[in-house]
């Protein structure tokens, strides 16, 4: 198989990410990896729920006084939108529109950075209130759960940027189509995890 063969929109296959054996393997392997990641986050969520509001005696922090929903709601909307824009990017990949894909991925990346900026602001705000990493079991489990998600955002951003730069002049091939596809899967996964964080940590923390 010639990996650098040039395709036209007419010859481009319907599922470019799964034409080669390498592509099929990446596709399946990445889904399995996300299965493991789910268990990883499940462990973090379980720990957070066990340690929520737990701290040294007389601790002043609790979820209903600490968290403020408006900021987190904006973050949620930004990340959900970025998931939508990455779907547009994949749509353009299927239609062999390279420029369209790169543009939508760029928008996805910008939204990702906006989310990350707000998260850093939020963490910084908590630390200034005295809610530091080592303040209590509650703070440790909160920062570890949400921070691990934030780390995933950083990795996802780095990955997508690298893909965009690497392939900017090469265009589509059956070699890089699976890479784009798995990167977008990863981005969706990050989004899904955030939906759970928004619900379990913030909504149930303030309202529940």
């Amino acid at each position, binding site marked *: *198989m010639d*990996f*650098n063969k040039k395709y036209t929109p007419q010859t481009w296959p319907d599922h470019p990410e799964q034409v080669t*054996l390498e592509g*099929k*393997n990446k596709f*399946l*392997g990445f889904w*399995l*990896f996300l*299965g*493991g*990641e789910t*268990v*990883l986050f499940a*462990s*973090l969520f379980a*720990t957070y729920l*066990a*340690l929520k509001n*737990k*701290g*040294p005696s007389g*601790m002043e922090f609790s979820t209903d006084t600490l968290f403020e929903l408006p900021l987190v709601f904006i973050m949620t909307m930004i990340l959900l939108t970025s998931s939508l824009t990455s779907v547009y990017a994949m749509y353009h990949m299927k239609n062999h529109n390279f420029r369209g894909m790169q543009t939508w991925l760029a928008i996805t990346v910008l939204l990702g950075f906006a989310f990350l900026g707000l998260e850093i602001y939020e963490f910084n705000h908590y630390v200034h209130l005295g809610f530091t*990493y*080592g*303040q*209590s*079991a*509650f*703070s*440790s*489990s909160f920062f*570890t759960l949400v921070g691990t998600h934030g780390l995933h955002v950083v990795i996802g951003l*780095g*990955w997508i940027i*690298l*893909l965009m730069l*690497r392939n900017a002049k090469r265009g589509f091939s059956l*070699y890089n189509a699976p*890479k784009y596809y798995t990167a977008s899967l990863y981005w969706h996964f990050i989004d899904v995890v955030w939906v759970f964080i928004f619900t379990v940590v913030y909504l149930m923390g303030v309202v529940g």
Partner: protein
Amino acid sequence: MSSIAKKKGFGATIWDYLTTVDHKKIAVMYLAAGGLFFVIGGIEAMLIRIQLAQPDNDFVSAGLFNEIITMHGTTMIFLAAMPILFGFMNAVMPLQIGARDVAFPFLNALGFWLFLFGGIFLNLSWFMGGAPDAGWTSYASLSLASPGHGIDFYALGLQIAGAGTYIGGINFLVTIINMRAPGMTYMRMPLFTWTTFVASALILFAFPPLTIGLFFLILDRMFGGNFFDHTMGGNTIIWEHLFWIFGHPEVYILILPAFGIFSEIFALFSRKRLFGYSSMVFATVLIGFLGFMVWAHHMFTVGLGPTANAIFAVATMAIAVPTGMKIFNWLLTIWGGSIKVTTPMLYALGFIPSFVAGGVTGIMQAAAPLDYQLHDSYFIVAHFHYVIVGGVVLAILAAVHLYWPLMFNQMLSEKLGKWTFWFFFIGFHLTFFIQHFLGLMGMPRRVFTFGANQGWDLFNLISSIGAAFMAVGVIILVVNIIITVVKNVPAGNDPWEDGRTLEWAIPQPVPFYNFKQTPLVRGLDTFWIEKQEGNKVGMTYAEPLSDIHMPNNSFIPFVMTLGLFIAAFGALYHGEKDWAIPVLVLGIAITVGSMAVRSIKDDHGFHIHKEDLMNDKGGK
């Protein structure tokens, strides 16, 4: 092709192994590294038994004893048993399903290097201020209080090695799902492939909780976290849950491939189709599933309450059903077979009563009220050594003899092999059978010595003598290997003469591309079917001879791992040395940088052309 490989110089050979992505060479490295750790863990076991050979002994101090038992357990589970099984999975599974390599050859190499560097890092603790000393389970209330860096080495080393195992698990899953030869349906897969499949699925879902548990331990000990410190609102039981949610599937990750190996051996040397193949597959999957439902039976005495204890007790006992199915299927495979008692077969025959004994004591402990009596006594030590040594280690030793001709094209001496078996087998029962009674007499586990007036002297001495027998058995095996390697007599094709599955159909030595033409699988035990029908080649081909695509070698997996190894030192000395943070950042930068290089560089592999394949006669 294979003739070129033989003429390489020493340096070129080393470089070849450092950069290889070939599953057969990675298998050899897993076997060699795992074997080395097995010997280290064995020496630690001998030190334990020397210390306990007589009452009030001061051969080692109490503190050193704690370090030795911790490292013995950790080394044997993570660095010996699992990697050696990974070695056999790598060597055999792709050949059994008719694949040219695993799905991700690059990740396969990365997984190996992560395991090796993690293991080295853990063992460096001996020379850098003391080994971990909180037991292989490293319960948080103990491990947080442990001074020095021992526990830090444990947490960081296992984190690195565990990442390698996780990668390997995904790799095997994708290989089995996507890369089976035409005709190799799921219900025609050899049992070793099936057990590799289920064990890999267990790895996929069991290792993330360990990762998180170790992550918490690292954060608590080195970065100011408060997960387990109850004065800060933490909860030490969280560690126990996370550890056992990993830890119980882990024992099935070990025993299922062992079951697979024995299933192959019983069919091969009874010269008979495996009895109840479908029920064997069903039992394997069921054991894998139930393996996730029973972790709290390690925590009966924690105080989870009678309801939780009852549920977990019943679930635990349920596992006896599929396991019993397997035992009867093996017995019925032997029954009426034309049996050849070779060394692997001897191990298989010895395995059945040994493992049944271990299983029965397991059922005893599953009864939660009785477990309150047995908990943390030598009865537990006896039980888990009966299943791990009587199951996993016997399988590993059997597989070393069984697959040596496949991996190295040499036959280990059958005579010495049988000596190894008898020494090891007798020594094993001598060591551990009597420990059941020590436990019932009240001897707690993990004590560094006992008093002369407690009535435990004789039984402990007998146990220590048994350990010496096992050591002699292993030494004979090492001698056997050295003699075989020095003699270097080619074993030839189908060395056991009655091979049933695809791996025995390949000409020896196995060409680096495995199958010149992808085989067509016509049934369970496809090689046996072909031989019965008088097919001289032993295979029906699914495709005409054509170019083969192969992956390139790469040094990146090694560098990527080296980065994490360096970063681990930075984390270890965090808050103590000025250079800690720069080293941590440097290490992670090396790893992330090499990932970027891997991503940016084009690496399409290469093709072996049809003409070259026609000229390459393979083995003979």
